[in-house]
């Protein structure tokens, strides 16, 4: 993939994440902050499908943005074709693992499995 496309994704995910994380933070204000973090309220968030979908979107956006950012930092830190290939594939793998694990958590909580 061309670097310009990767960076367009990087900027897009940043904007998307800022918007959705703002919604996520504002949702804490619908009730007292301590109440919003109580077990039943957190589980209720996952049972509410639109909110669960938004959490999934936040997870994807932040994983893609964060691991691409880390890839860029690592590419600037050291150079070499083997190292760069490892960093590129490593970032994609880490991104996929984090999204899979986070999605599993969202799904399990949504379906009431603990």
């Amino acid at each position, binding site marked *: 993939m061309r670097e310009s496309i990767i960076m367009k994704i990087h900027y897009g995910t940043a904007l998307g994440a800022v918007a959705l994380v703002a919604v996520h933070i504002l949702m804490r204000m619908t009730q007292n902050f301590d109440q919003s973090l109580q077990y039943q309220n957190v589980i209720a968030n996952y049972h509410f499908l639109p909110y669960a979908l938004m959490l999934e979107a936040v997870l994807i956006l932040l994983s893609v943005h964060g691991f691409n950012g880390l890839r860029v930092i690592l590419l600037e*830190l050291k150079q070499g074709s083997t190292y760069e290939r490892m960093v590129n594939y490593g970032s994609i793998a880490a991104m996929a693992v984090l999204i899979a694990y986070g999605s599993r958590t969202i799904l399990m909580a949504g379906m009431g499995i603990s």
Partner: protein
Amino acid sequence: MAVVTTPKPSEELISINKTLDQTNTITLRIARSNPAEGQETSYSEFKVPVKKWTTVLEAILYVKQNLDHAVAVRYSCRQASCGSCGMKINGKPGLACYTKVSELKSNVITVEPMNNFPIIRDLAVDFKQLISNHKKMKPFIIREDSEVTPESKEFIQTPKDLENFLQFSYCIKCGLCNSACPTMATDTSFIGPQGLAQAYRYVADNRDKGKEDRLKIVDDSHGIWRCHFAGSCSHVCPKGVDPAMAIQLLRGYMLGFQK
């Protein structure tokens, strides 16, 4: 109302002559190293007499002529046109021929080779990578009908078209921008502000048809996207070129904001 009084011509001349004749002595610290022989950097100190107009290059040449012939320094035009005498002067990249000792406001002046370049010896650095990156940007007008034939017409360009790239064509390839670039300090494969500014210079030229080629070249994992917009390249340029702006404008082409 403010009253401005101009000195009489004779008074003015006397005061200028007094200042110009004044000779001070400064300590010039020159970084010495020879990596080919595994020699670590050390500093040699010299006492150099300077006047108001003495440049750092003249101070170094005084040392070469009178105190130590072995100091290695690259220079040529002595008028900020050739871009040969770039070095770190009191920690800041600058042209030695364009920096007056008096403007540094210090009696101790330290000159070191530019950062982000391999050192050949003392103050002389290797420009291979800079020139190679410059060449990679295809620094010439690309178009099929560039050959002059009896039927060919001039490529018309308005003053406004010229404004788009004129300042970037003032680059003298001194390497100061690359030396000041924080990305170049860690990413040795980064094209650098000099190369990227030159890519923009030709992309913005309405006579040129090689935009797509150049955008492909800079669209690399060590290309235009690695610039963090620190702006230090523009800050140190002795010719008033703004490579940081060129990079942002070039990004505009890549993101589709500019056609």
